[in-house]
C-alpha cells in the first residue's frame, strides 16, 4: 500500500448488494482503505448470482460467482472477500471480531434485514464504540415506505427522474440504469469521509443514514424548483435541453449518428462566429442576448442542425471545439472503450483477478494531484481471503477457522485451479492497448481452419 493514500490507516467492512454500498466501499478501497467485503452463500449479491452471460448455468456456482463483469470491474475492485453466514453463531462471532478491528461498516440493507440480522448501530457500537456505521437505505430508516422493496428503475420512477426523460408527446423513456444507486454510493463515501474527519479530532464514531430516494430527488432539484414555483410539470424536451440555445442533440450526415452541442452563454455564442458557415447566425443582431435566443431556440436549433447535417459528428465536433464551443459525438459504449483521451488519462485499466489474468476495470473519476487512487486489483473472488482475514483481522487460530468452514458458517474460494479467459482477450488489445493476457483461442483461426477443411481442397 502506498504510504501516500488518504485512507491508508482505515479498515472498511462492507455488507453490500448491487451497486450502492459495494461502490462506496470500492472508492474507499481505491483511496487506500483495507476494504473487506463480507459475503454470504445463502444471501449472495445478485451480481454474484448472475455471473457473466456466457458462462453456462451447468458450471458450478462456485466458479460462476466469480465471473460477473460488473462486480469484477466496477463494483468490487480493490477489496478483499471473506464469506461468513451472519445468522449462524460462529459466523456472527467472527463478524463481531471483524467489526472490533475495523473503522467503518458500510451496508445497503433493508430496515427489516438489519433488524433480523441484528446489525443495528446500537448492537455494533457495543462491540466497537468508535465505529463509523453507514446504511444506504432505499427510503431512509423511517416513514411509510421504509420496508418497501425496490429494484432497477423503481426508485428512478418514484423520484421523478423517469418522467423527465423522453418526448413530450409520448410516455417517458427513463434512463436504462438503476440510477439512484450511483449518487447514493457517492453520498456514502462523502458521509464516511466527513465522519472520519470528525473522528480524527474527537475519537467518536457515527451512525450515518442515507436515503437513496432523497439522494435522487436532490440530483434533479432544478426541475423540482420549476415544478414547485410554477405548479406545473416541466415538460419533457426530447433532444433539446432547456439550459441553452442551442443545447442538445443534432443530426449529422449519417442518419444513425448524432452530435451533442452546447452553447451556454454569450461567450459561447460569439465563438460560433469563428466557424465561417455559422457566422451569420452568431452575429444575427436579433439573437444577441440569451433571452432572444431562448425565445427563438427552435429556429436556432434548426439552423445549427442544417449545418451539422451536412457533415459527420466528428467533423462538427472538431470544428466547434476548435472554435471553443462544447461539442462531442453521441458515441456508443464501444467508442468509449477505445476513446484515446480516456486512454491518455488511463481511465480504463486491465487489473489482475484470481480467475481471470486481467479484468477490464473502470478507473476513478476523482483525480487527486498528490495522492491519486491506486489500481492494483480487480474484484476478489468469492471468499478469496476468508482464511487470511479471519486470521489477521478477527485474530482466529487455524483450528477455529477450520471449524467455521466445516459447519458452513464460513466459506472460501474453491476450484482455485480453474482459470478463465475473457472472450475479448484476442481483440481488445487493438482497441485498448493495455497488458492483456494472450488469448489461447483465436476464433478467427478456428473458423479459418474449418473453412479450409470444408472448402480448401476443392476450391
Amino acid at each position, binding site marked *: 500500500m502506498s504510504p501516500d493514500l488518504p485512507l491508508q490507516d482505515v479498515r472498511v467492512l462492507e455488507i453490500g448488494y448491487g451497486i450502492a454500498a459495494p461502490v462506496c466501499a470500492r472508492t474507499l478501497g481505491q483511496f487506500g482503505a483495507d476494504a473487506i467485503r463480507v459475503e454470504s452463500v445463502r444471501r449472495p449479491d445478485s451480481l454474484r448470482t448472475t455471473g457473466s*452471460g456466457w458462462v453456462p448455468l451447468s458450471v458450478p456456482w462456485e466458479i460462476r460467482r466469480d465471473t460477473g463483469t460488473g462486480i469484477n470491474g466496477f463494483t468490487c475492485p480493490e477489496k478483499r472477500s471473506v464469506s461468513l453466514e451472519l445468522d449462524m453463531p460462529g459466523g456472527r462471532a467472527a463478524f463481531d471480531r471483524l467489526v472490533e478491528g475495523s473503522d467503518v461498516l458500510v451496508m445497503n440493507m433493508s430496515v427489516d434485514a438489519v433488524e433480523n440480522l441484528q446489525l443495528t448501530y446500537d448492537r455494533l457500537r457495543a462491540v466497537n464504540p468508535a465505529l463509523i456505521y453507514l446504511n444506504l437505505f432505499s427510503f431512509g430508516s423511517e416513514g411509510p415506505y421504509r420496508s418497501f422493496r425496490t429494484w432497477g*428503475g423503481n426508485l428512478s420512477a418514484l423520484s421523478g427522474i423517469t418522467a423527465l426523460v423522453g418526448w413530450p408527446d409520448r410516455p417517458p423513456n427513463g434512463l436504462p440504469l438503476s440510477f439512484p444507486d450511483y449518487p447514493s454510493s457517492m453520498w456514502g463515501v462523502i458521509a464516511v469521509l466527513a465522519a472520519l474527519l470528525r473522528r480524527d479530532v474527537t475519537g467518536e464514531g*457515527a451512525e450515518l443514514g442515507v436515503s437513496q430516494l432523497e439522494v435522487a430527488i436532490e440530483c434533479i432539484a432544478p426541475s423540482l424548483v420549476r*415544478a414547485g414555483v410554477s405548479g406545473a410539470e416541466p415538460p419533457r424536451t426530447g*433532444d433539446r*435541453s432547456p*439550459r441553452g440555445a442551442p443545447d442538445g*442533440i443534432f443530426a449529422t450526415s449519417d442518419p444513425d449518428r448524432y452530435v451533442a452541442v452546447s452553447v451556454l452563454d454569450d461567450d459561447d455564442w460569439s465563438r460560433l462566429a469563428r466557424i465561417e458557415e455559422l457566422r451569420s447566425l452568431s452575429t444575427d443582431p436579433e439573437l444577441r442576448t440569451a433571452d432572444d435566443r431562448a425565445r427563438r431556440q427552435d429556429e436556432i436549433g434548426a439552423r445549427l442542425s442544417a449545418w451539422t447535417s451536412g457533415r459527420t459528428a466528428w467533423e462538427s465536433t472538431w470544428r466547434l471545439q476548435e472554435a471553443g464551443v462544447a461539442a462531442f459525438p*453521441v458515441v456508443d459504449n464501444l467508442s468509449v472503450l477505445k476513446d484515446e483521451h480516456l486512454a491518455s488519462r488511463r481511465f480504463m485499466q486491465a487489473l489482475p483477478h484470481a480467475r481471470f489474468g486481467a479484468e477490464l476495470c473502470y478507473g476513478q473519476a476523482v483525480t487527486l494531484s498528490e495522492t491519486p487512487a491506486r489500481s492494483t486489483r480487480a474484484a476478489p473472488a468469492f471468499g478469496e481471503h476468508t482464511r487470511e482475514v479471519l486470521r489477521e483481522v478477527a485474530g482466529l487460530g487455524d483450528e477455529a477457522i477450520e471449524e467455521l468452514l466445516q459447519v458452513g458458517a464460513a466459506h472460501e474460494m474453491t476450484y482455485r485451479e480453474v482459470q478463465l479467459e475473457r472472450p475479448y482477450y484476442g481483440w481488445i488489445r487493438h482497441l485498448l492497448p493495455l497488458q492483456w493476457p494472450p488469448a489461447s483461442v483465436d476464433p478467427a483461426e478456428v473458423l479459418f481452419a474449418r473453412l479450409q477443411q470444408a472448402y480448401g481442397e476443392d476450391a
Partner: protein
Amino acid sequence: MTAIGLLRGTRVLDLGSEVLAYAGRVLAELGAEVILIEPPGGSPLRTVPPLVQGEDGTAVSAAFLAYAAGKRSVVIDLNGPGGRSQLDRLVASADVVLLGDPARAGGPELDERALRLVNDDLVAVSATGFGRTGVRREWRGSDTVAWASSGMTFPLGDPDRPPVVAPLGLTNAMSSLNACMGALLALRARRARGSGQAVDISMQEAALSVSMEAGPHMAAEGLVPGRVPRARMAGLGVFSGPNGTTVDIAAFLPGQWDSLAAWIAEVLRMEEPLLEVFRGPVSVRAPYIEIINGWIAELLGHYTKQEFFLEAQRRGIPCGPVNGLVELLDDEHLRATGAWEEHSVPGLPPFRLPRGPLCVDGVGAGPSRIPAVGEHDDIVLG
C-alpha cells in the same frame, strides 16, 4: 446537536461555477461554511436558464435556487482595484476552493496553481469537460456534452427518433458529488501530508462513474445497447394503463412473478396467468411478453398510480410509480420523513427544496436560506 456539523470549522469558497454549484450545497449540508463569491450585481448563476418567474416579473434561475441554499454571499469585483487581493485574503483562510472550469471562471487567471501559491494548504477543485490532463484537456464540456461523451446518450429514447437528453443538470450533479469526494479525501490526506492538493474532475468521467449498466465494459462483452423498443421483458419496465396510470415494475424473480400472476388472476378474474408454463425464471416468460404485458396494462386500469404502487408493494412486488414532479412534491413518504425544506425568495411564491439525504446520529442537515447578493459581506469581509 440539532444539525449535521461534521464539517463545522471548514471554510469553502464557491467561485460560482455552474458545474460545482451542487458541490457547495452538499458541503453546506455537512456543516461547512460555504461562501459564494459573486461579482457586483450578482452571480451570472442567478440568471442561467431555465428561469422561474414571479407575478411581479421577478425571474431567477431554477438551478441557482436549487443549490444556493446554505451558502453565504460575498461580493468581490475581481476586475476592480483591490478585488483580487480581497479574494486572496479569503483564499488564504480557506480549506477548499470550488474553482470549476478555469476557462469559465470569469475573472483574471484563476486556476489551482495560482490559488495554491497563495495557500499551500488549499484543496483546489476544478471541473472541466474532459479533465486537466490528456489529449482533449483543452476541449469544452457541458452537462449535455459530458453525458453524450460517456456513451450514455446513445441508448436514450426511442429507435424511431433521435436520442434524448438526460434530466436537466444531472451530469453537473454527478461532477459535484465526485468533487465532494475528492475534496474530503484531500482534506484527510492533508492531515498526514501537511499540505493541500488539486482535485481534477472530468465531466466525461463523472458521467462514466454512473454507467456500469450501459458502459464500455459491456461493449467488451459484446453488448452495445442502442435505443430499443420499450417493454423488453415480461413483467419488467415501465407500464401504462388505459387511464394513463404509469408505473415501473420489476417482477422478475419466480416468487415475484407468482405474486403478480395471483394478483392479475384475482382482479381480472382469469385462470390463465396461473398456468405452469409461465412460472420460473424470467427467461421462461420471454415468448409471452405481449400477453403478459397486456394483462399488466389491464390490471393498471383498476387502480390509481399510487394505489397500484402500494398494493404491489403489499404483495411483495418491486414497483415504483412514475411520478411527475408536482405529485412528487406531495408524496406522503417524503412529507412524513421531513425531506423538504420550505424556501422563499423575494418576488417568487414559496417553494420546497430537498433538505438533504443524510442523517448523522439521528440528525439531518440544518435549516438553510438562499442568500441575497452580498448578504454576508460584513460578516465575512468586514
